[in-house]
């Protein structure tokens, strides 16, 4: 297998020093992606020809001194739910078979404008519904640390590709933890910014009020570069934040002294979480305290309702968002149906997988006359309480730290027969989506040879603080440099 790629920062330095070229780096990534595909199944498609052409263009720009950004010429992968002109975007679903997008997502445009090169599309749970990347028409993605285990989900392909050093960074989307949980399972940094910070234009919707595009990389500093390329106001997304995004790299001072870190007591209960994970997170907090950070206990009293609230809202929105996949205009259409109703029923029965159907049915039920008030409206009220919990907590601290997941990567097939257990793996992540606040996961140790993730919440609009804490932590520790043995 070709050698693994370095971080964005390392690659940038090598390019600037004239030690390598974009064509070389992109070629290496493409070869490694192909070589690892049978083992990992991280990619659903590579754009080898286009990527190498773009790499040549980037090399020309660099020779002329016209480098557009720090990530110009550097390779990235994107999740299969972001559209790019002339490329398929199938969301790992049969229902979108044959669909080629005539337009490009704003976030992907941001990468293109920065000169970054999309080498391929990564596997995911169908329509981002799942926590294991097993619910995919392309088959499951495997965890680079242990091929019998899942990479987490739904952005499992992106997390696995970064962990296996196939690409230095990748885009994912996070509706209830779909970036942070796989980042945690795969031992990489994964961050979802504030809701509205990155435009959702061109992100195939799962749950519109929760979906947010974010990034995977080995380091917080690399994530900052990606956000500088993809964040900012977009008039094509009405929920986009009007303020310009800050210059994230500039916020990475390496200094956490005086920072107040809140530890929500509800996330540190012994019974729901692996003891090794709690210990790793506590050790890391102690490390930050030694670097000058202060800790304070806070409470998020409504956290226990977050999973139920999340599934009511996410499924209700999904049931409506996925109605457009009806076989009329694009994607899969059942053959030989007699009449409209049969065409709809068979198209959707054939096109969607079990988990997606389950969520559409649940969501439809939550919105139905007679149930709306008890489920959807109630869930929205609880959502407000969850948001207020965070607002109150952030009066006493600058960031919150929790475990990302109550467990390390679970085995393939372990939870597919029990959806409720699968849903509970989101228990520490969903509240950030309900509150719309930024959150990242970074590696902070290991249990039984598997990575452990530490989650940092920032207050609304403040991606900079979690990035700064993670960057400072990575400067004094080396958890993030651990690489899965097969991919070292």
């Amino acid at each position, binding site marked *: 297998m070709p050698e693994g790629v370095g971080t964005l920062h390392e690659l940038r330095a090598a390019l600037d020093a004239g030690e390598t070229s974009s064509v070389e780096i992109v070629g290496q990534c493409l070869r490694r992606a192909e070589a690892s595909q049978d083992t990992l199944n991280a990619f659903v498609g590579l754009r080898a020809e286009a990527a190498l052409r773009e790499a040549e263009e980037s090399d020309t720009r660099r020779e002329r001194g016209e480098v557009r950004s720090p990530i110009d010429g550097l390779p990235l992968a994107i999740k299969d739910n972001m559209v790019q002109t002339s490329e398929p975007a199938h969301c790992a679903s049969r229902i*979108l078979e044959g669909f080629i997008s005539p337009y490009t997502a704003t976030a992907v445009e941001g990468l293109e404008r920065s000169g970054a090169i999309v080498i391929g599309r990564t596997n995911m749970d169908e329509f981002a519904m799942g926590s294991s990347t097993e619910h995919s028409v392309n088959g499951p993605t495997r965890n680079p640390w242990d091929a019998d285990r899942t990479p987490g989900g739904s952005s499992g392909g992106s997390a696995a590709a970064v962990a296996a050093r196939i690409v230095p960074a990748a885009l994912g989307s996070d509706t209830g933890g779909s970036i942070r949980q796989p980042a945690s399972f795969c031992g990489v940094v994964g961050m979802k910014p504030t809701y509205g910070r990155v435009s959702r234009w061109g992100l195939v919707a799962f749950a*519109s009020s929760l979906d947010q595009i974010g990034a995977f990389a080995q380091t917080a500093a690399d994530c900052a570069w990606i956000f500088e390329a993809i964040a900012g106001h977009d008039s094509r997304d*009405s929920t986009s934040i009007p303020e310009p995004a800050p210059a994230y790299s500039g916020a990475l001072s390496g200094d956490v002294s005086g920072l107040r870190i809140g530890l929500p007591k509800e996330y540190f209960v012994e019974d729901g979480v692996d003891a090794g994970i709690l210990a790793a997170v506590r050790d890391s907090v102690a490390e930050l305290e030694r670097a000058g950070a202060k800790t304070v206990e806070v409470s998020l009293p409504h956290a226990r309702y977050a999973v139920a609230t999340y599934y009511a809202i996410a499924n*209700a*929105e999904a*049931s409506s968002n*996925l109605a457009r996949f009806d076989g009329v*205009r694009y994607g899969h259409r059942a053959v030989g149906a007699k009449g409209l109703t049969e065409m709809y029923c068979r198209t959707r029965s054939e096109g969607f997988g079990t988990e997606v159907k389950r969520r559409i049915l649940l969501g439809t039920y939550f919105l139905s*006359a007679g149930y*709306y008030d008890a489920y959807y409206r109630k869930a929205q009220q609880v959502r407000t309480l969850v948001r207020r919990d965070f607002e109150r907590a952030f009066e006493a601290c600058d960031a919150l730290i929790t475990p990302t997941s109550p467990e390390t990567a679970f085995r393939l097939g372990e939870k597919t027969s029990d959806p409720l257990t699968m849903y509970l793996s989101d228990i520490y992540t969903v509240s950030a989506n309900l509150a719309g606040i930024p959150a990242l996961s970074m590696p902070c140790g290991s249990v039984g040879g598997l990575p452990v993730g530490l989650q940092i919440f920032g207050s609304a609009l403040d991606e900079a603080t979690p990035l700064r804490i993670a960057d400072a932590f990575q400067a004094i520790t080396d958890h993030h440099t651990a690489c899965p043995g097969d991919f070292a």
Partner: protein
Amino acid sequence: MSDISGEFEVVIGLEVHAHLRTESKLFSPAPIVYGAEPNHAVHPVCLALPGVLPVLNERAVELAIRASLAMGCEVHQRSIFARKNYFYPDLPKGYQISQYEEPLATGGWVDVPVEGAGGAAGKRRIRLTRIHMEEDAGKSIHDDAIAGSDSTLVDLNRAGVPLIEIVSEPDIRSAEEASAYLRAVRSILRFTDVSDADMEKGHLRCDVNVSLRLRGSTEYGTRTELKNLNSFRFIEDAANAEIERQAKTLRAGGRVQQCTLAYDPRSGRTSVLRLKEDADDYRYFPDPDLIPLLLSAKQIEQARSEIPELAEQRSERFQSEYDLSEYDAAQLTASSSIAEFFEAASKQHGAPKVVANWILRDVMQALNERELAIDDSLFSPDALARLIKMVDDGKTTVKSARGLIAELVESGGDPEELVAERGLAAVSDTGVIEQAVAEVLAANPESVELFRSGEGKVVNFLMGQVMQKTQGKADPAAVREILARELGK
């Protein structure tokens, strides 16, 4: 139809859908083009491609506010767009973006002219429940000739066109009143420039809710809904057919079933589309892709200041300001463009009643013959004023001027130049007129005799003869003067 007035009271409420006059769609940058090739006035947003998002058209909001204020509604500073979920091939997203729990505007009214006792003009005030914004669906084409007998074609050009839905209270009491109400709504929409409100083009469509109750009863009967009526006549005919059907059912001791009906104009009958028992559950919920529509008090006041004078107010002003009859004033305010043409021409000419006569008689006729609106014509108010002035000044005759109106309506032009080119200048050369008078008098000695014996009216006959001789170009005042002088000799 049979007279049901003694037994039952008719109760009707209307839901009127009106296209807003915007350049682009409600949530998509796609242009609005009537008559474009199918599926050409579209954009990824109206096709509901994966990943697209709606962005509200602010112009549509301005127009919706203006219409709401013109109908006396309270416009809310906060309103919410909701998704109405149902599956249909011409509904690309599988939901329509509409407003549900918190609409743009509530309350309001429309005054409808009605014929009172003995034909006296009166008006009835129809209250409104609400006005909300929503997007139109596309069109399904089931026509065998186009689609084939086992296919349906979908045209999404109309998908996403902005609409307002104007919901009335059940205040309407007859089929005729229902169509009069719709005419009044159309007039307001046109005067405010909110909508072209052309029923033939589908800019204006309406659903009619009909129920009957025993006269004197205060409770409403069970209602049925007539869907998607698109002409004034169909509305009256369909409502009357439904009133008749319900009366028959009730008289026979039956019960009206709540249902949705379609009206077939060819048979003049209504037929059940679906019963309300299997009513759709639209699973409305606030659209998470859109933020609440928040309006400042200033924005609403700005919109209020942009509402032009409506037809009814303008008609009243024309009567008092220009001393026009109620009938003439109503004619001249049938559309804002005619009203504006009249006012501009009057202002320049100075005699509104004279100008009104010219417009109502000659200009309207010329327009109607050509099926033109005054807006589509090249005829300017200035040209009309100058033409009438030429008649006043004896530079051309009424007859010549009337003959020019059709041409001015059709292709415009300068009245002075046209009169000159066509040789229609009034002949005021006394020599020519004297010559003609002498010839007429010589040819009609018996008339001259009659005049001298006291038959003064014979002058008109002689006038006519002289005018004929001069091909209508002689200045009538000059002819009258010379004729009187010659006859007096």
